[in-house]
């Protein structure tokens, strides 16, 4: 892992405008799927995006890969602004940023053989000219599939094997950054571990950077260096994995972590104290004013409805600044819960 910044996202927005009828009037409304998020990914680093459905994590991954056009903010890749590049100008980016999709069934074209699916990226980018077949077989071996199966159709593979094909396709262009959108959530538990191991192995051997989008906190904890917790289109907490999991400062992160059922209960470990959120996530069409989490938050006070809390360090101005250069722990709450002993420990070690 080097210190070179690969991807820098600043104040990224994606608003979907639509028209709605209220009474007799036509009202223009927007779904604020992603509403001003910033993060950086360094070479070889893995950032986890966690959150519940509708929090904008998938939209973020589509924006970063430029499958969707942001309505605000910038995306920079290796220092180059790619936010509004035209499709033909994106070629270089397409080679360096690849995506792994969630659904192993819909992410492979059922009408193409595995060979054709994996040859496409090579052909598009003119890689391994004349030796495409050898490269495709190499890729199949790389993801742990039998290279002889080059002429089979996706329907002849199991879900886990299909996901391996999807990974091979992303690797075909030798990218620097891979965005994995819920890569294992559609798989059987026993297969999930296989695919996670494969991803970890590839990451280490090929020195890949990852943005890993998932709702499964356990998987993210296992795989990521940094974690960003999203709620209703915003990042509410951001930091090193250890801090997010062991000393969450934002009430939502705390609730999310405590809501996940814990298998260790069966081993006689006392269940964590539960934080039970009331209700569902509000609609992103008309998000609550101020802090978006306040409608479900047990700490909410007047100020939460009036002011939107910024994403800052809960402990010092200093670390807010260091974060911008790749620092550690930020949260967006008016009343963060800081575990002082841990902060001291971290600051000591840093």
């Amino acid at each position, binding site marked *: 892992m080097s210190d070179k910044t690969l991807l820098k996202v600043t104040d990224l927005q994606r608003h979907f405008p639509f028209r709605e009828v209220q009474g007799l009037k036509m009202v223009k409304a927007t779904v604020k799927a992603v509403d001003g998020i910033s993060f950086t990914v360094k070479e070889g680093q893995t950032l986890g995006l966690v959150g519940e459905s509708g929090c904008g994590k998938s939209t973020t991954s589509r924006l970063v890969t430029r*499958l969707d056009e942001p309505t605000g903010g910038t995306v920079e890749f290796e220092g180059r602004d790619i936010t509004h590049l035209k499709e033909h100008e994106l070629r270089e980016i397409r080679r360096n940023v690849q995506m792994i999709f969630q659904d192993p069934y819909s992410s492979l*074209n059922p009408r*193409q053989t595995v060979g054709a699916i994996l040859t496409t990226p090579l052909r598009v980018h003119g890689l391994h000219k004349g030796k495409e077949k050898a490269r495709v077989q190499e890729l199949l071996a*790389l993801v742990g599939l*039998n290279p002889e199966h080059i*002429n*089979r*159709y996706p*329907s002849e593979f199991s879900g886990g094997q299909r996901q391996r094909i999807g990974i091979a396709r992303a690797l075909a262009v030798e990218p620097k950054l891979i965005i994995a959108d819920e890569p294992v959530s559609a798989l059987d538990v026993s297969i999930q571990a296989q695919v996670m191991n494969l991803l970890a192995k590839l990451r280490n051997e090929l020195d890949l950077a990852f943005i890993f989008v998932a709702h499964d906190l356990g998987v993210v904890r296992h795989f990521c260096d940094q974690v960003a917790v999203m709620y209703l289109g915003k990042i509410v907490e951001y930091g090193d994995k250890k801090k997010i999991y062991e000393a969450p400062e934002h009430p939502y992160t705390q609730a999310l972590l405590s809501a996940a059922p814990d298998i260790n209960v069966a081993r006689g470990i006392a269940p964590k104290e539960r934080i039970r959120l009331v209700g569902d996530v509000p609609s992103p069409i008309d998000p609550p004013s101020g802090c978006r989490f306040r409608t479900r938050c047990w700490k909410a006070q007047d100020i939460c409805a009036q002011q939107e809390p910024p994403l800052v360090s809960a402990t010092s101005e200093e670390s807010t600044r260091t974060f911008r250069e790749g620092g550690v722990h930020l949260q967006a709450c008016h009343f963060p819960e800081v575990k002082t002993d841990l902060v001291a420990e971290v600051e000591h070690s840093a």
Partner: protein
Amino acid sequence: MPEPSAATLIEESEETSSTTPPEHQEVRTGRSPGQVAWARLKRDKVAIICSAIILFFLLVAIFAPFLVSLEAVDPITGAKADPSTVHTELVDFNGLPTVGASSAHWLGVEPRLGRDLFARWAYGARPSLIIGFVAAFASTIVGVALGLVGGYLGGATDKVISWIIDFFLSLPILLLVLAIIPIMQKRIAAGNDLTPEQTSAIRFWVLIVILVVFGWMGLARLVRGEVKSLREREFVQAARAIGVPTRSILFREILPNLVGPIIVSASIAVPAYITYEATLSYLGAGLVEPTASWGRTIADAQNLFATYPLWLWPSVIGLSLLVLALSLLGDSIRDAFDPTSRR
């Protein structure tokens, strides 16, 4: 980019694939969805019988001159039969034929004009089949093209195409077609005096063009809908993320997934166009004399249906059987692509 040690990974792969028993693997050797459908179709008895019937009519149409030449020389006229020569000597002054079915005229001769009915029947298969297949082919291309463009591009283009589809679908098509065909024919003839053969040829092509102009909407709507949903599928997103150009996405990623619906739609269109042609000919806006056509023959023969059924029935049976076989084959093809549709 550093390559990982493939050897260790292959080891893992062997573990993974060894769990599938060998006999299971042999069954699953690369078959595309199209091949699966084809295999299903080959086992469908209805489809095979229908194909045989269609083949029979194709052969009749292709070898019509040969079949007609098998008829004996007529003892009265001293000539071989052909579909267009008028023999008034074979009818009485009421217009009724004086000769019945014989070795020279297998189906007898036409009342009033005395033309050989078997020859007219055999040649009559030609316009039906040509119009059916040519119009189906052309309207499939138009429908697929417009559906693809509208569905993939979306936005204003899609709105315009959808509007045109809506517009065409709400027209009373039969009546409009009936009105337009003579108008188009006049415009093409542009006041020149044409022989009946020329007029008939113009009619023939005008008919095909009109059928296509009013027949592409169903498929376009279907393709548009399918493309809209396919466009959001992850494999199309993956192709975009790789940087595959739009044209390639349309033709290499999306279109192959529409082969099923397109083949089904085309196979259902053929009998529909044949029916349409026959209906228009019956109502007087289709093919005109002297072209031999089943639709026209049925229209002419209905007045004498009671006294001279041999005039009416061969065309009724030919037309019904051909269209029935084509339709049922179309249904079988649909079932082959989507086995859940019937059972």
